[in-house]
């Protein structure tokens, strides 16, 4: 279903500029959102997407320009104001109270009360059930939000927006943490929203999604709008070219893989983690990138956590270079040259109060002054930082800048750099390119391949199946805590990985 010609712009921005000290984040941007359309906003990290969304959601005020909502000029004084005007923003950080139930969250702040001013549970439940039914969701109403998966939480947030009769929903990287099934469900719901005339502003780095659900696309580059087009007028390459300002050098999507040595860097035998993993066995060889696929709940993340000593192991053996080891804590794993990149950069990765350099070197072998074993050698650290900055192309003003000032892609590079600085030869990389732009993604993949060539042994655990196809020598697929398959080079394909991950068998053409 497309947009018909009579659709009126529900929101229109004209001549929007936003000046930050030293940088013009947005420069004279035009943007319109029609009722019932999905409008994708594309651009590299730093192109101005977040700034534009923040302006629309009232978090920021533009330096110049006009915002018209249903034909009326508006100036949003803050996020609450924009919400009142019917604009809901769904980001990675949910505005849900984890301790409350689904129903309570949906009606938080405008509880339905009975005669004595007490909560009217029956009405709350009935209304909540109505909203959820409308969306076709089967989330248990009485469930505490903290027990829900990321995908379900997102849907609760959408349900909340619907119950508030919001007309505009902005979604910032909504699929970053979702598995394939959840993405499909989200897209179904977005279709329903469209049919109800709700305008969806959709931001994602995943091109394929944009082509699946968007009606129109606006591309930003360096704070300027470079194009707004109907999606069917463009090809994927066109969009990339618009974003980068040049055609992307066609990378061989699947990297040329070099023969790996037969030496196992990490051998896992019948590994068991209570409630998560059953009898997992594999050998990770020196110079190899092994992909690890699986839906949320498949035990994919728990596998890397267990190997890094963050999850208790109840049985099985782990050997590093033939030496048995029991990963009881990250420090133990690190002594055995294992390092893990966490799945959620914000939750388990970034130290918001520390500088870029401190963040990069937090797990590094300490560089001490000659004089004292207690003190850090700042010069030596700076040298290390500069080296890593150059090799990973980290864009930061200086090493003393706080990391939260960097864009998501650059923060992710710092996280990757941290893993490299840990002096470990076995890297467990979770979602290495989550939330980064296409250019950075290609760079990170190239880095991973280069590391393998240099004799690192790497596990890439990812929900991004094209990524696994691109970088893996072999791919382990988990389903419900068990090994569903270990695909070799010839067998790796998106179809095969997806089929195994959802528990199907693949046609045994190779075996």
């Amino acid at each position, binding site marked *: 279903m497309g947009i018909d010609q009579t659709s009126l712009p529900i929101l229109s921005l004209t001549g929007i500029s*936003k000046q*930050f*000290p*030293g*940088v013009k*984040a947005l420069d004279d941007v035009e943007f319109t959102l029609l009722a019932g359309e999905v409008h994708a906003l594309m651009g590299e*990290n*730093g*192109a*101005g*997407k*977040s*700034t534009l969304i*923040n302006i629309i959601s009232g*978090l*920021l005020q533009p330096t110049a320009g006009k915002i018209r909502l249903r034909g009326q000029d508006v100036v949003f004084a803050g996020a609450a104001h924009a919400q009142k005007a019917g604009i809901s923003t769904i980001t990675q950080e949910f505005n849900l109270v984890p301790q409350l139930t689904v129903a309570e969250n949906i009606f938080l702040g405008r509880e339905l009360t009975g005669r004595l001013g007490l909560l009217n549970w029956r009405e709350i439940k009935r209304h909540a059930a109505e909203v959820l039914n409308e969306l076709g969701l089967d989330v248990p109403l009485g469930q505490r939000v903290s027990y829900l998966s990321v995908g379900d939480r997102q849907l609760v947030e959408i349900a909340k927006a619907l119950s508030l009769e919001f007309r505009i929903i902005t979604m910032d990287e909504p699929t970053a943490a979702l598995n394939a099934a959840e993405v499909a469900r989200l897209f179904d719901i977005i279709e329903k929203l469209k049919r109800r005339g709700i305008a969806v502003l959709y931001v994602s780095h995943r091109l394929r999604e944009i082509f699946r659900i968007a009606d129109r696309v606006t591309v930003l580059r360096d*704070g300027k709008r470079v194009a707004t087009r109907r999606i069917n007028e463009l090809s994927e390459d066109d969009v990339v070219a618009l974003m980068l300002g040049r055609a992307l050098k066609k990378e061989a999507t699947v990297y040329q893989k070099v023969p790996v040595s037969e030496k196992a860097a990490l051998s896992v035998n019948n590994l068991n983690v209570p409630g998560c993993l059953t009898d997992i066995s594999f050998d990770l060889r020196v110079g190899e990138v092994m992909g690890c696929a699986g839906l949320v709940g498949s035990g994919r993340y728990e596998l890397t956590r267990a190997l*890094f000593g*963050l999850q208790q192991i109840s049985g099985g053996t782990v050997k590093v270079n033939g030496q048995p080891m029991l990963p009881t*804590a*990250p*420090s133990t*794993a*690190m002594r055995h040259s294992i*390092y*893990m990149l*966490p799945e959620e950069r914000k*939750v*388990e*990765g*970034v*130290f*918001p*109060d*520390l*500088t870029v350099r*401190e963040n990069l070197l*937090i*797990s590094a072998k*300490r560089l001490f002054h000659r004089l004292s074993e*207690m*003190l*850090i050698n*700042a010069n030596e650290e700076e040298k290390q930082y500069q080296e890593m900055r150059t090799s990973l192309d980290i864009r930061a*003003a*200086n090493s*003393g*800048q*706080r990391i*939260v*000032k960097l*864009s*998501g892609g650059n923060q992710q590079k710092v996280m990757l750099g*941290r893993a490299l600085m*840990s002096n470990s030869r076995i890297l467990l990389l979770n979602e290495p390119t989550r939330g980064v732009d296409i250019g950075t993604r290609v760079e990170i993949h190239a880095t991973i391949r280069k590391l393998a060539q240099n004799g690192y042994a790497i596990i890439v655990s990812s929900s991004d199946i094209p990524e696994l196809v691109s970088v893996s020598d072999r791919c382990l697929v988990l389903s419900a805590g068990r090994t569903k398959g270990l695909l070799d080079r010839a067998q790796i394909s998106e179809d095969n990985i997806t089929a195994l991950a959802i528990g199907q068998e693949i046609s045994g053409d190779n075996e």
Partner: protein
Amino acid sequence: MNHSAESPNFRSIFSLSNATRFVQIAESLGVFALLMIVVIGASIIAPGFFTYTNLTNTLIAASITAVTGLGMTFAIAMGGFDLSVGSVQVLTAIVVADLLSAIDPPLAILGALLTGLAVGLVNGVLISKLRLPAFVVTFGMMSIVRGVALLITQGQSVMITKHVEFGLLNNGKILGLPVPFIIMTMVFLALSVLLKHSPFGRHACAIGGNRAAATVSGINIDRTTIAVFGLVGVTAAISGVMLSSQLMIVDATLGTGFELQAITVSVLGGTSLSGGHGNLVGTVFAALLLATIASALNILKVISFYQYLALGVLLIFALAIDTGRRAFIAKSLAARPG
């Protein structure tokens, strides 16, 4: 200031795009400006404030609070705090006074410092190994240590009669500066280096800023926690020794409310209760501010009870500023282009 240690590039410090760094500077300057205003105000309305004797006394009082405040800053940066410091101060003041009747001052002081260290380490072990909240452990320890101090003295005062040269720790001057001030400066320098230039300080801030990330980064959280509380215990003990040498007669009722002072100077100085970073310069300025206010109120013959009111008001004021600052930083971060 301590910020030059953090970044040698002055242009980057003052570049406006670096909003949070700017806020950090403004924070120290803010307390400093407040201090100047209060000092000038006190000099005008309280005759006798701006005299050598009074200024020296004020400086001594500030130094005693600052030493523990500096240790407290580490605990707060790590996302915790220590309510037992007042009791530790009095216990160590009594320990040193008692020991002076038997042994030489250096050994007696060492005994007091080890006592403080021991209490701090016990705090740290209980918090990290039993996974108890710092609030509960140190609150309990506050009562336990006070009880021990009462038991040791049997409720009596302890007077220092032997080794009266111990008083030099309070009255002495080095290069014209009171010894307590010298002690505080040394503690300040040592802890500044520890906070910014040692893995220990960095780990403490990392734990306060993002505990989950600290775990994943392989930081030994238990060991850092124990060390930080050990450090706080030692600084409280130094304050105890300083108090003992100031009074030369101590009893177990001293040091009540001292924990509140230590936390207040730390927070007022710009160390956020939410953890993640510490501002040691600010702590020193805030201690001076607190002592100045107390001294002015004394001179103006305001009943000392009012000083409790002032302290409470200041703590709430500091927390309000802290909340406002966090909102500002959150906003400037949301403003990050991209």
